[in-house]
C-alpha cells in the first residue's frame, strides 16, 4: 500500500464510477454497439485476474475503495464494452488493441457467475453493528 493521501480522491472516484456505470446502463450508444459472442466465464476469470480488473474492483468483483461492485449484476454487454472503451470518469480505458471485444465478453460472462452477496440480515455480527 502506498500514498493513502489519495484516499479521499479514490472515494470520489468510487462514487463517480457508480454514477458513470449507472449512466452507461441507460445512455444511448454513440458508436455502433458490438455484437459480441457469448462469453466464456472460465476464460473471463483468467482475464479478470491477468489484465488487472481486480486491482480496483477486488478479486471477486466485489468493489472497494477504488472501484464499484461489478458482479454478478452487471450492465448489459454492449454498454459494458462501451464504458470500458470510453470511460467517462477516472477508470483507465481498455482499447481493442489490448483487450478484444470477445475478451470483454468473456469477462462479462465471468462477472455474471460471481456469487451473489450475502444478505446482511444473515450475518449476526452485522445485525448488532450499532
Amino acid at each position: 500500500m502506498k500514498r493513502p493521501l489519495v484516499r479521499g480522491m479514490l472515494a470520489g472516484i468510487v462514487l463517480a464510477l457508480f454514477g458513470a456505470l449507472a449512466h452507461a446502463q441507460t445512455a444511448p450508444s454513440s458508436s455502433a454497439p458490438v455484437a459480441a459472442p457469448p462469453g466464456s466465464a472460465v476464460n473471463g476469470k483468467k482475464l479478470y485476474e491477468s489484465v488487472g480488473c481486480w486491482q480496483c474492483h477486488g478479486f471477486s468483483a466485489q468493489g472497494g475503495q477504488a472501484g464499484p461492485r461489478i458482479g454478478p449484476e452487471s450492465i448489459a454487454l454492449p454498454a459494458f464494452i462501451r464504458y470500458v472503451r470510453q470511460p467517462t470518469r477516472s477508470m483507465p480505458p481498455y482499447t481493442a488493441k489490448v483487450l478484444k471485444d470477445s475478451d470483454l465478453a468473456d469477462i462479462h460472462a465471468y462477472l455474471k457467475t460471481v456469487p451473489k452477496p450475502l444478505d446482511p440480515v444473515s450475518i449476526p455480527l452485522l445485525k448488532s453493528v450499532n
Partner: protein
Amino acid sequence: MARARKASVNRRSFLKIAATGAAALSAPVKYASGQQVTTSEVPPAQILTTERPGADFMTDVLKTLDIEYIAANPASSFRCLQESLINYGSNRQPEWLTCMHEESSVGMARGYFKIENKPMAAIMHGVVGLQHASIAIYHAFCDRVPVYLILGNTFDATERRPGAEWRHSVQDAAAMVRDYIKWDDMPVSLDHFAESAVRAYKIMMTPPMLPVALVADSELQERPMETGARHHIPKLTIPKPPAGDSNAVAEVARMLVAADYPVITGGRLGNTANSLRLLVELAETLQCQASGGKFPSLHPLNGGDVGQADLVLALEPPDLWNDVNTMTDQLVRTTRSDLKPGARIVSISTDDLYMKSNYQDFQRFQEVDLAIAADAEATLPSLIEAVKRLITADRRRFFEDRGRKIAAARAQARDRALRQAAAVWDLSPISSARIAYELWDQVKHKDWSVVSGGMPGGALWNFEKHYQSITGGQGASSGVPCAVGAALANKKYGRISINIQNDGDLMYAPGVLWTAAHHRIPMLTIMNNNRGYHQEVMHLQRMACRHNRDLTKAKIGTAIEDPDVHYAKLAESMGWYAEGPITNPNDVGPALRRALARVEAGQPALLDTVMQPR
C-alpha cells in the same frame, strides 16, 4: 587510538592546564591500544571533568517547555545533552525514547501531537540524522503538526574530531529542511539558546503550527559553565490564536442563515474536544450537512454533498479546490466544478497566514467569496452566537425540516454500508469490512482510538471523540511511526490504540516496532497486507492502458511478493505478540480476541491479515 594525542590543548582552551600533577605523570601511560608511551610524550595534566556542562542549562530550558518525551536515534553530536537529560534531568520531562531511525523519531512526535495536542521533541544529528528525518518532517509540515527538532552540530571547525565529525558538521544545519519548517536558529551562547528555545516553542504553537528546529552546538553543550554564571530562561507565553474579524464573522452568519442548503467542510478542525464540540454545535444549530474535521461519523447530519450546496463553509481546509472540484486522471486531464451555479464559498483558515512557497502542499488555488484569515476554532464561538441571534422562528422551522431530510438520507447510507459489508464478508483474501466489523464488535464498549487514519470498510464505526481518529497528511512511510506516537499518547489514558497498517508503509523503517515494545507502548496493529504498493500497481496499470501495451505486468516493481514478508515473525522478533498470516476470514474474530487481550495487558500485538487489494 593508535597514536598519542597532541600534547597541546585545542578544545577547552579556556580551561587552565593544571600546573602540577607530576605524580600522575611519573609512570608511563598505557593507552587503550596497548601502546606504551614515554613520559616525555604524556600531555600535561588537564582539568578532565566538569559537573556543570552547558547541556545542564539546556536541560533546564527544555524542562520549562513541559515536553513529555524526546525521541532519538543516538548520535555523538548531542551526546552531552543526552547524558544531561538522563542524569541531571532524571530522564523526566522529557523522557528519552530510543528510536532506530530519525524518521521514526519525528513520525512518533507527529502522532503523539495528533492525540495529545502537545508537541514532542526529536533530537538528531544535524547532518546525517536530519537527512534521515527529513521526510517525516515534511509529513509533519504537510499535516500542520508542530514538532520540536533539536539538531546536534559542531560549528567550530577547530573543535571537530578528525574524520566523521567533519562529515557530520555543517555551516547551516537547518538549511536542508528550511523550506518545510516554520523557524530555526543556531544559538551561539547559552542565553541565546534559552531565548531561541522559548521563541521556537512559541512560534511552533501559533497557528498555522509547523515544526521548528533549534541547533544545539556540541561545543555549547560540552563547555563547562563558568562558576557563578547565571543564565536567564525567558517565560513562555503562547499567543492566543487569531479569531476572525467581527464584521466578517457577522457577514458569514448572515450568509449561513439565509442559505437554503449550506454545507460545512471541517477540514483539519476537530483535533481538540473543544473544536469538535463547536463544529457539531454549528451544524446542529443550522441543521445542515457537515463533514471532515472529525465530525461524528454516525451523526444524522454527517455528509458533504457540496453539489447540493448554495453555500460552502470551509473550515481549515487542507485542499479546498479538491473539495469542490473533480479532476479526471486521463491522458488529457479534465476538471469540472462540483458546485451548482451561483454557489458561494466562505473559508476560515490559518492557511491564509501561511508563508511557504517551494513545496506545493498548499494545493490548487480556489476562488472564494469571503475568506477569513483566522483560526477556525477561535472564530467558531462568535460565529455560532451570531448565527443564533439571526435565526427567526420561520428559519428554525426551515432548518428542522432540512435536518430531517438529511437524516433520512443518512439512514439509507447505513443500509448501503451494511449491504456492502455483507457482500465481502466471506472473501479471502480478507476484506477490510470483515476486519472492521469483527473488531468493532470487540471494542465498541471500550475506550478506543484508531491511530492510523480511519477504519477502511468500517463505515458504521462510531467515531465521535476527537482522539478516536487521526486525520490528514499520511504519506508513505509515515503511518507506523505516527501510530506508535499516537499510541504512546493514548497509553496514559488506558485507551486501546488500533493501527490498520499498510504493508509497504511498515517496511520503510520497521524498527519502530522495537521502540513500541521497548517502551511498553500497547497497541493493536492489524496488517492491511495486500502484498504490494497497490496504489502504484494501479498507476502502472493506468499507464499500460493509456499506451495500449501489455496489461499483465503491473506487478513488476510494485508487488511485495516472492518472498512474502512474514510480518508476524518480523514483529515477534522485536518483542510483539503476533499471529499470521491469516487468510481465512473466520479466523479473524478469535485472533482479534487473543491480540486484544495482550494489548489490554500492556503489550503491542500484531495480526498479519492478508487483505483484498483495496
